């Protein structure tokens, strides 16, 4: 059982470790010092901090949902599904088309479009379409680009995934055109409209789209967690993750489980895509790439291969990205630097991520 997850936990002390620790301590000292100066300077009022937190949590929740897509596939095949960001992008487009179509259907009774007349139904339809399309894409992705490579060395499906990612991105570009599109939301989900919370004499807006995104992500993740941890189906997934041959000997159809994993991860990706569209409003063929990369980082941060890890990793990444630069008094341009530094720092101390299982090295 030499999974990549296994880490040499109890190793001998050596000079390099000491160097690492020193670097880390210096880094933490630097962080603390910056944080102190920023807070001390009083540049930000409580309303600002709250805004940072809100924005971080919302984007974090989307990262989490995407990250789960990575984690599921990784957990079962030990492969980075590089094209997952594109799966998400296609889901976002599907949702977009649903909204567009519904907007063009007039409803006699109300004099408004279907989209504005039946808003809840419309949103549900958009999510269903996004999840469905992404699930289909995920399914075929596995069938075409990954299944023939089952059992090949791990880098090979990785390259195949990169190829698939390039393909899907460009396919979307040529079919949908290169321009960016605005998600036309139903009336009550207008962006920048929401509850206004008075904080320290200022009004902080908590947008409906943001709340929808956040609540929906949590709901999706909890459902999925229950599915994986509590049901027979989830157990079969975990068994396949551990050992495919033995799983087959238990009567589990390994191929089907893997296909289903891609479908589920596609569903999550599609949902994330539609959320992204509804909350952020702008989509184009490249829209999946950066969130995909971030979400994968989040999955690793939390401990790849496990669902709560992806959730926590996503949230932390979102919050660090939104709060970090301000809290440390660093340019926002450098937020990725902060995010990755935190990742390195975490991995130095917890080599399997924040709540990744600390597996012992195979018994020597």
């Amino acid at each position, binding site marked *: 059982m030499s999974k990549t997850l296994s880490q040499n936990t109890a190793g*001998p002390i050596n000079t390099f470790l000491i160097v690492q620790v020193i670097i880390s301590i210096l880094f933490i000292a630097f962080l603390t010092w910056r944080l102190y100066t920023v807070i001390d300077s009083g540049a930000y009022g409580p309303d600002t901090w709250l805004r940072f937190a809100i924005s971080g949590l919302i984007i974090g929740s989307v990262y989490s949902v995407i990250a789960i897509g990575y984690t599921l596939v990784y957990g079962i095949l030990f492969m980075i599904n590089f094209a997952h960001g594109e799966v998400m992008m296609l889901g976002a487009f599907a949702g977009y088309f649903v909204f567009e179509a519904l907007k063009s259907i007039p409803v006699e009774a109300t004099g408004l479009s279907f989209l504005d007349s039946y808003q809840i139904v419309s949103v549900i339809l958009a999510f269903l379409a996004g999840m469905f399309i992404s699930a289909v894409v995920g399914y075929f992705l596995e069938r075409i680009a990954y299944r023939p490579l089952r059992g090949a060395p791990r880098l090979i499906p990785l390259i195949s995934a990169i190829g698939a990612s390039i393909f899907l991105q460009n396919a979307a570009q040529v079919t949908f055109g290169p321009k960016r599109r605005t998600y036309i939301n139903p009336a009550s989900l207008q962006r920048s409209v929401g509850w206004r919370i008075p904080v320290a004499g200022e009004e902080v807006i908590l947008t409906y789209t943001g709340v929808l995104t956040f609540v929906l992500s949590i709901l999706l993740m909890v459902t999925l967690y229950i599915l994986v941890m509590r049901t027979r189906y989830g157990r079969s997934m975990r068994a396949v993750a551990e050992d495919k041959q033995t799983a087959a000997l238990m009567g589990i159809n390994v191929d089907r489980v893997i296909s289903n994993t891609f479908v589920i991860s596609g569903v999550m990706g599609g949902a994330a895509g539609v959320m992204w569209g509804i909350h952020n409003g702008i989509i184009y063929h490249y829209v999946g790439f950066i969130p995909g990369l971030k979400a994968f980082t989040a999955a690793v941060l939390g401990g790849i291969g496990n669902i709560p890890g992806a959730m926590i990793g996503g949230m932390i990444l979102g919050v660090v990205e939104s709060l970090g630069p301000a809290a440390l008094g660093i340019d926002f341009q450098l937020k990725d630097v902060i995010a990755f530094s935190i990742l390195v720092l975490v991995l130095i101390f917890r080599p399997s991520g924040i709540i990744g299982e600390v597996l012992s090295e195979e018994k020597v």
Partner: protein
Amino acid sequence: MSILETRDLTKRFGGLSAVNRVNVAIPEGAIYSIIGPNGAGKTTLFNCITGFYPPEEGEVLFMGKNLTGLSPDRITQRGISRTYQNIRLFPAMTALENILVGAHPRLRSNFADAILRTPRQRAEEKTALEKAMKLLEFVGLKGKGDLLARNLPYGEQRRLEMARALANEPKIILLDEPTAGMNPNESRTMMRFIENLREELGITILLIEHDMKVVMGISEFIYVLDFGQLIAQGSPEEIQRNPQVIESYLGRGAA
């Protein structure tokens, strides 16, 4: 004087004391065995000696010097080699390359030598290769040097693993179940081979085994571990008669 000695060696995993205040002492040139039920801590003891696990308490002495806390590579350089319960060769390297890796601590050429192909490096490579060939022959794998380790049959992999360990020119070699998965005939061949190691190369041997024919056949002295603790030690005859050992390990049928 004993070549290898542990003093109150203790290794814990969480609440479990896998090795608990174990004292063993192996004289130079001897063949000693460790037996004990599954999960008794035998392999863990090896791991502590070879530096894979830092022990919580106690120390390991090798030729009178303290090894505790050194990293595995340093310990190997001092002259301790080992094999693994489930063979761990470098599967995609050839048999010869496996042995040459084993000789790593005995070679001196460094990075600069490699880049510049200094005469010193070339000479050293040549002698190393000759020695590796000899070892290959010694373990009966002559002519199979260019095969990938993973393509060798099981028994030959075991022997290759030993050759790799021997390339380090060790003073003592620790063997973890060298006859596991072999039938009685094959085990006997392995026994002869181990005896040869000592006769021809003068290497001290410490051995973990579940096959009583092997253990009783070649060891001069046996330690018995159970639940991390030494419960008995003595000559094969003594051990075979020890009621505690029979109770927890041998079973009545074996007596």
